[in-house]
């Protein structure tokens, strides 16, 4: 008789409780069972083993197999090591498992003792470890009853399932010195293990040999906890710290480079969010990517600088433990801006980096950065504080910047109740060099890294401040039930002065005012409140081959936005035109139903439906503008309201013909909210509808996931795309668009000290139905079937990192570390038949650490490539003393040249 339950146990890095998700579903792969009377034990509470500190340098990821005897109440009566991985690991595993609680095995409904076998797999806390999942319950069903023999050994096929995430407060229990429970009875003693299998139980074990005893006991189980959230599609990835650390990262935005198909660049200085491209989307500052930090939304709806504007500068890269990436829209919990996909930054400081850390960096362009991090020992990974200050003169002209960030996170409680609090404060100001015409660069009128020698150019700058607070609480019940609630609030202040077009504008308010420079001032202030709740039911088991969960979710947010746009005349920055002066109140209430059902061991079906209601109240104080030539017959201003509802299904099917191989197909419909100021009164809020499909595979090789390989072909259709309009400095609609492509992604840990990731993404992105010719634009730039400009068809990213103890010095290991990251963008199609130059960037780092000190050097753009962080096509006039050109020209903002930083770190 055999009970087989599979759930991967994750160790050590008993990571934080994220704001939006905890744990993971232990996937139960059912073994044949033919005794309908016998119900196997089920884990209802588990504690993760701590990765032994003494083994950190070994970087091993072993599995310890335990024999565990349960009594009629489900308590652990005895545990001993069956398959050792060394004393330290054995002790840690025993200490943890002794704290587990089970729902007892039952025969005919009556609880009975049981003996099971538990495989506890240890993963390295951070380096190369799989990521703690956010979703799923702690409870691991132990299911399948078979009287034919012992269960499978460790590593036997975990089925598809969500991973589990032990949360803060979980700690190793007291371990006995000898690794065995003092009150344990001999495992082979029949009286101590009287669980009876259908065939053998009445007769008790047949002998003293343990295996025989197991057989005689009739119940054998393997419990493992899934290491990562189980993906819904082949385009869903968890990028752990091993990959994130492999190449140098100056800031959180750089971490995004590891996302397959992603390219992120700072094109507008240190106080403006990265420009993002993902899988065929020129996502600008986040319009097409739902960005969250610990589940708290970062995108700002109806932002004046771009819909869905997101600046991740407040996230310190040192406290990011993983990225959860969902490319496409297949999860009902994905909300606004999940067009190309969703990315969640998960925060935590691993065991090997805990303590008090000071990290000082200095290098090119007088760049200085000081980081202080506090992560108390023996506290959960989610408990930490960090602050950083950075200043730089910037490369080239006019790129001086300063910023400061602080983040505090507390993980509280223990199962079944756990809580998480975190707060963020960030401020930054930077000068902007602005964009340059390529023909001016080619003619030598301005240097590639320079700025136009003009007062209206030299007044370009940006400022940003953000404060964010979030709190979540979670309760986990029996059989996978989980309830979670999160509340958050945010304040964001954004101000930018930027001149894209030189001298082309005419004042609307005073038409005779012309030629004072197109220095656009944008101001946006957003106060947001939000909440999110999710409830996952206990597992429903309709049949042995049909079981699963239901989940209901709710997310709501209110945004109060003040925004203005003016034209300023440099150098006094006198206002010479008003373009926008508006107050917006927006609300988004979304709800979803999600199903997660297994149909046999080989098929898993997930999905549901999500609906969002959006409400807008716009006070456009410059609406119904009265041109100077018209008599004033009314008072300026236009107040309007709008409401809309978006609903879309999401579904995925996974088939596992072989244990390490998953075939996945997924379809989903999502949305992007409208720019509120463009709505007219009573208009049904015109959502951008996105339809996304994905067909792919995922192959996992090795007990410790030495290789995870995935590939997918995808399709995305947008009902209304938008592109940047430089004359107004904002995004404007360009009609529907389609993207088709494929992604290959591999994460590899071939050796304990070596981590790598490689992604290759191709996309064919086209405009389906650009805006028709109009009186104002009789020959629009965009044509039907034309390639979407600025989108790189090929994006390749490779990250490789190695960390190894080289030798011992004074009894302490001297550890070396090297890593490289390489990004390649193929020539991007530009408007008017042109192509941007390809981009190839190589970053590298090398460091050495001994005891509490670390010395390192990071080099960015090692080849010193000349590259454009962004490219535009529009009409500009930067030579005001010559006849003005009025045909669109290519503009760029320069990317950073070779930058070298040296870092001294001290950890106490």
């Amino acid at each position, binding site marked *: 008789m055999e009970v087989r339950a599979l759930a991967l146990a994750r160790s050590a890095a008993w990571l934080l409780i994220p704001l939006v998700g905890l744990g993971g579903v232990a996937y139960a792969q059912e073994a044949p069972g033919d005794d309908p009377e016998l119900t196997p034990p089920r884990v209802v509470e588990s504690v993760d083993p701590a990765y032994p500190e003494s083994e950190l340098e070994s970087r091993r990821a072993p599995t310890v197999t335990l024999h565990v005897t349960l009594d009629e109440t489900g308590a652990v009566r005895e545990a001993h090591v069956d398959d050792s991985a060394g004393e330290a690991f054995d002790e840690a595993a025993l200490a943890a498992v002794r704290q587990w609680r089970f729902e007892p095995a039952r025969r005919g409904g009556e609880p009975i003792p049981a003996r099971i076998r538990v495989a506890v797999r240890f993963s390295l806390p951070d380096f190369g470890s799989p990521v703690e999942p956010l979703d799923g319950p702690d409870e691991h069903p132990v299911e399948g009853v078979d009287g034919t023999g012992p269960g499978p050994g460790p590593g036997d096929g975990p089925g598809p399932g969500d991973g589990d995430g032990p949360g803060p407060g979980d700690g190793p229990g007291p371990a006995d010195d000898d690794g065995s429970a003092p009150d344990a009875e001999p495992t082979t003693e029949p009286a101590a293990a009287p669980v009876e299998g259908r065939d053998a139980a009445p007769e008790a074990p047949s002998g003293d040999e343990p295996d025989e005893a197991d057989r005689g006991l009739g119940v054998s189980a393997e419990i493992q906890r899934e290491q990562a959230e189980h993906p819904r599609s082949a385009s869903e990835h968890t990028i752990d710290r091993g990959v994130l650390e492999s190449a140098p990262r100056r800031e959180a935005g750089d971490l995004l480079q590891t996302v397959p198909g992603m390219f992120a660049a700072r094109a507008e200085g240190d106080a403006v969010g990265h420009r993002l491209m993902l899988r065929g989307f020129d996502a600008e500052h986040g319009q097409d990517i739902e960005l969250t930090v610990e589940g708290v939304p970062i995108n700002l709806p109806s932002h004046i600088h771009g819909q869905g504007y997101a600046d991740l500068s407040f996230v310190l890269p040192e406290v990011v433990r993983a990225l959860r990436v969902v490319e496409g829209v297949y999860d009902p919990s994905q909300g606004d801006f999940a067009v190309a996909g969703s990315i969640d930054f998960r925060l935590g400081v691993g065991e090997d980096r805990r303590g008090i850390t000071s990290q000082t960096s200095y290098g090119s362009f007088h760049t200085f950065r000081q980081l202080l991090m506090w992560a108390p020992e023996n506290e959960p990974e989610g408990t930490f504080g960090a602050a950083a200050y950075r200043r730089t003169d910037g490369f080239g002209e006019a790129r001086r910047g300063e910023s400061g960030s602080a983040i505090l996170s507390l993980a509280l409680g223990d199962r079944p109740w756990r809580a998480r609090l975190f707060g963020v404060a960030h401020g930054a100001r930077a000068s902007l060099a602005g964009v340059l015409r390529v023909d001016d660069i080619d003619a030598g009128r301005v240097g590639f890294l320079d700025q136009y020698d003009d007062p209206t150019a030299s007044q370009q700058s940006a400022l940003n401040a953000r404060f964010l607070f979030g709190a979540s609480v979670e309760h986990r019940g029996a059989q996978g039930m989980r309830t979670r609630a999160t509340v958050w609030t945010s304040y964001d202040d954004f101000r930018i002065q930027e001149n894209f077009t030189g001298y082309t504008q005419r004042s609307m308010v005073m038409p005779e005012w*012309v030629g004072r420079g197109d220095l656009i001032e944008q101001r946006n202030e957003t106060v947001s409140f939000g909440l999110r709740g999710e409830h996952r039911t206990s597992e429903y088991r309709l049949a042995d081959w049909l079981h699963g969960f239901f989940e209901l979710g709710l997310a709501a947010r209110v945004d109060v936005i003040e925004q203005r746009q003016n034209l300023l005349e440099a150098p006094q920055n006198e206002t010479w035109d008003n373009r926008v002066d508006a107050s917006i109140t927006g609300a988004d209430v979304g709800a979803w139903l999600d199903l997660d059902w297994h149909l046999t061991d080989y098929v898993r079906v997930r999905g549901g439906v999500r609906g969002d209601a959006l409400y807008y109240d716009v006070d456009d104080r410059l609406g119904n503008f009265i041109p100077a030539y018209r008599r004033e017959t009314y008072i300026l201003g236009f107040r309007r309201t709008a409401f809309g509802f978006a609903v879309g299904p999401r579904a995925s099917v996974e088939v596992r013909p072989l244990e390490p191989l998953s075939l996945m197909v997924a379809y989903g419909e999502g949305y992007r909210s409208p720019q509120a100021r463009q709505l007219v009164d009573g208009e049904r809020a015109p959502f951008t509808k996105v339809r996304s499909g994905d067909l792919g595979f995922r192959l996992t090789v090795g007990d410790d996931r030495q290789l995870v390989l995935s590939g997918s072909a995808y399709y995305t259709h947008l009902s209304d795309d938008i592109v940047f309009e430089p*004359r107004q400095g904002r995004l404007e609609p360009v009609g529907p668009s389609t993207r088709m492509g494929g992604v290959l992604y591999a994460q590899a840990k071939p050796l304990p000290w070596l981590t790598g990731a490689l992604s290759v993404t191709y996309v*064919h992105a086209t405009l389906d139905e650009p805006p028709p010719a109009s009186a104002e634009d009789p020959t629009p730039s*965009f044509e039907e079937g034309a390639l979407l400009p600025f989108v790189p068809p*090929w994006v390749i990213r490779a990250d490789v990192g190695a960390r190894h103890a080289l030798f011992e010095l004074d009894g302490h290991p001297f550890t070396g570390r090297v890593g490289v990251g390489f990004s390649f963008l193929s020539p991007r199609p530009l408007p008017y038949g042109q192509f941007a130059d390809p981009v190839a960037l190589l970053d590298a780092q090398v460091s050495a650490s001994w005891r509490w000190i670390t010395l390192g050097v990071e080099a960015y753009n090692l080849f010193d490539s000349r590259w454009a962080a962004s490219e535009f096509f529009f009409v500009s006039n930067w030579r005001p003393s010559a*006849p003005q050109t009025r045909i669109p020209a290519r503009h760029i903002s320069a990317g950073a040249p070779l930058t070298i930083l040296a870092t001294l770190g001290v950890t106490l």
Partner: protein
Amino acid sequence: MRRVATLALLFLAGCGDTGQDRVTFPVHGAGTGEASFEADDGWTVTLERADVALGPIYFCATPFADLDVCPRAEAELLEVGAVDALDETPQMLGTAEAITGTSRSAMMDYGIGWLLPEPRPRAFDGAPRGHSAVFRVVATREDATLTVDAAVDIAPRNAGANAVIGVPTGTHDITGEESLTVRLDPAAWWARVGFEALAATDEDMDGAVTLAPGDRAYEALVIAMTSGTLPTFEWAD
């Protein structure tokens, strides 16, 4: 090798294009070859000199080129050149930068523009003697001869605007394979001048008159050049 490179670029770029292309085409200026005409009031008018500045020129897809409806041009000639408008042979003015599209109208200056940041209009390099046009005309009637000199300045009314708007160019699809000749008809311009009245202004009776802004004949010329007899655009493939 070049083909391989092109194929490689297409592969890397994902096969396809973004629609319009950026092209260039040459622009010439020319006169009609008509140097004499009979005025209505009996004067026989002969143009001895007609140097006219042309440019910049902006080509629009809209039926009526104006800055309000055509902030983005389909093509533009930014150079300013002087055209001997008495010569019907095309004279090179410069190369127009363009994007493939349709030209239906144009707006232009006669060598004097009003740049946005500047307080007043000014002549561009290339304008003959810093004027939009320099004329010498000899008019005769019976035994009377009148020599008229005129240096005409035609400036935009507003900064950033053009002096001449809504010039029909014919509907032409710009491909980059064409050349353009902008043909001027100075005789038609001078036909709007009343020579009888002009002769009456020759107070010293020396048979020579120099036109100045505000003069009736001067204003007639300005009106003729900006709206009365506009340049014609001749496209050739």
